[in-house]
């Protein structure tokens, strides 16, 4: 059992959710309610990780994280280090390939809120910010839960992108999915089996808890 890999995976999933939730909410709200030029293009861009082979996405990210490209250069300027083969690198990659899993459920949830309900909030004296916290977010709650659950579970299971961008450095970028693959390659089926069961349990429990939460809110209210 590679506990280090499990720890990397859990931290990666946690930080991906922490960063992606506000980003997902901002993008989803814009896509749900704003009619702007290039909206279709943005939607397609957000959905791209769904259809792109992980190795292809991983390849492009690996290249753009390099010191020849703006993203890599910017990171170098900011931190003095490289993005390639680091935890920060796989975190950014994880945020990008999870965009559709976070944005799409949230977008559907925001779209389902009638425009008049938000207008009624404004006419009731609630500021845009108050309307967001007290009306929009509670109504989009099931979508938010879905977004977090999908992002968390999907990050735990992601293999191709993480391997391309992060390599397989123990304690830094070697996630549990990669560790399982390593063990299978080394004919250590017992360890691979143990880790797989653990991953299965964690994923199942996570999904169970969040859907339970979402269901409880959904039941009575709307």
């Amino acid at each position, binding site marked *: 059992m590679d506990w280090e890999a499990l720890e990397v995976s859990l931290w990666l999933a946690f930080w991906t959710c922490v960063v992606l939730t506000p980003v997902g909410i901002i993008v989803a709200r814009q896509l749900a309610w704003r009619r702007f030029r290039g909206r279709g293009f943005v939607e397609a861009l957000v959905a791209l990780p769904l259809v792109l082979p992980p190795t292809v996405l991983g390849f492009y990210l690996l290249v753009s994280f390099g010191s020849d490209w703006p993203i890599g250069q910017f990171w170098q300027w900011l931190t003095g280090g490289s993005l390639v083969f680091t935890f920060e690198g796989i975190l950014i990659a994880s945020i990008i390939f999870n965009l559709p899993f976070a944005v799409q459920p949230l977008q559907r949830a925001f779209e389902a809120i009638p425009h008049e309900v938000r207008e009624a909030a404004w006419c009731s004296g609630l500021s845009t910010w*108050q309307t967001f916290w007290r*009306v929009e977010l509670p109504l989009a709650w099931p979508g938010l839960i879905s977004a977090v659950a999908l992002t968390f579970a999907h990050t735990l299971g992601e293999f191709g992108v993480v391997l391309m961008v992060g390599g397989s450095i123990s304690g830094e970028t070697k996630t549990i999915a990669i560790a399982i693959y390593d063990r299978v390659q080394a004919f250590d089926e017992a360890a691979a089996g143990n880790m797989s069961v653990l991953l299965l349990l964690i994923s199942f429990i996570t999904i169970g808890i969040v859907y339970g939460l979402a269901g409880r809110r959904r039941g009575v209210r709307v």
Partner: protein
Amino acid sequence: MSEQGLAVTLGQRTPIPLDAALDCAPGELLALVGPSGSGKTTLLRSIAGLYRPTAGHIRCNQHTWFDAARGFSLPPQRRRVGVVFQDYALFPHLTALQNLVAAMGHRPRAERKQRAAALLAQVHLEGLEARFPAELSGGQRQRVALARALARDPEVLLMDEPFSAVDQVTRRKLQRELALLRSDLSIPLVLVTHDLDEAVRLADRITVLHRGATLQTAPPDELMLHPAATDVARLVGHQNLFRGRVLASNAASGRLWLEWQGQTLETGYNPAFPPGSDVSWLAPASHVLLHRRGRPSLGERENPVDGVVRELVVLGEQTSVTLALSGGELLNFTVGTHAARRNGLAPGVDARVSLLADGIHLMAPEPDAQPPMR
């Protein structure tokens, strides 16, 4: 226009044409009526601050809410408007009480719940404070929406088709309650409705809108009997619109004679139409009197008109009659169903009516000679 109350002037060409002017005094109920797409809701949304036309201004109680010339527009949060939305737009995740409390940000926290409960009691919802909107009937939701609009302590109350989503029995009840509630409200009330009967029942004055333009504002009786122009007359449901020419008039006797289809009709003196002028004129259905068959009745000598019954539609206690006149024009009126039976009215039967002189209303002729609307 007095300084108190609401004064609105709005205009724009696109995307929704607007050419509207209205005012509403404190305590007055002004109804905006017009066919769908006439701009009623846009006008209401502009007052609420949810829509920004390209020109015009809105003032309420000496405060400017909107002034296009200065590029000034208060956001809805700062306009102190209470809005009852067509589908109520209640917050579905909050209870009835919480819906009201949410609109009370301007009051001290300590008194919000008590005030909300009092408002719910005022709209007869005691005991339902903890219900969610989904657990309330349509009529109860409408009451919560009204109470929430009042919870804001608004300077203007705006209602967008507030009774259109409930059944007729509930609608009558809610209309009655609004009429009662009004006496406690000393703010301008603006009601948008496509239901003219509703407007006539509830409003102090009615504004008729068509294609974004306010055509006429008048008390219900005046609007119904003295529409300013033929388009207003049609919009308020008049069918008996004809064209004629003034033959003679006499200010001393207060009489005016109208030539129409080779016949002379007598009506009240109107200085706006000297002899020889072309006019459009209206005979309201309420001022068409059916003559009793074989027995002369009161008013028989007043503008008698002969025709053949073209169509007879029994609508409960009332029967709608269409008479084809000798000149080919059609005249519509309503009689009690029992009277229609007693007089043997049936399609093809000859009938004689009087067009009561005080009912006949003269208007400027339409620019293009449209045939009367059928």
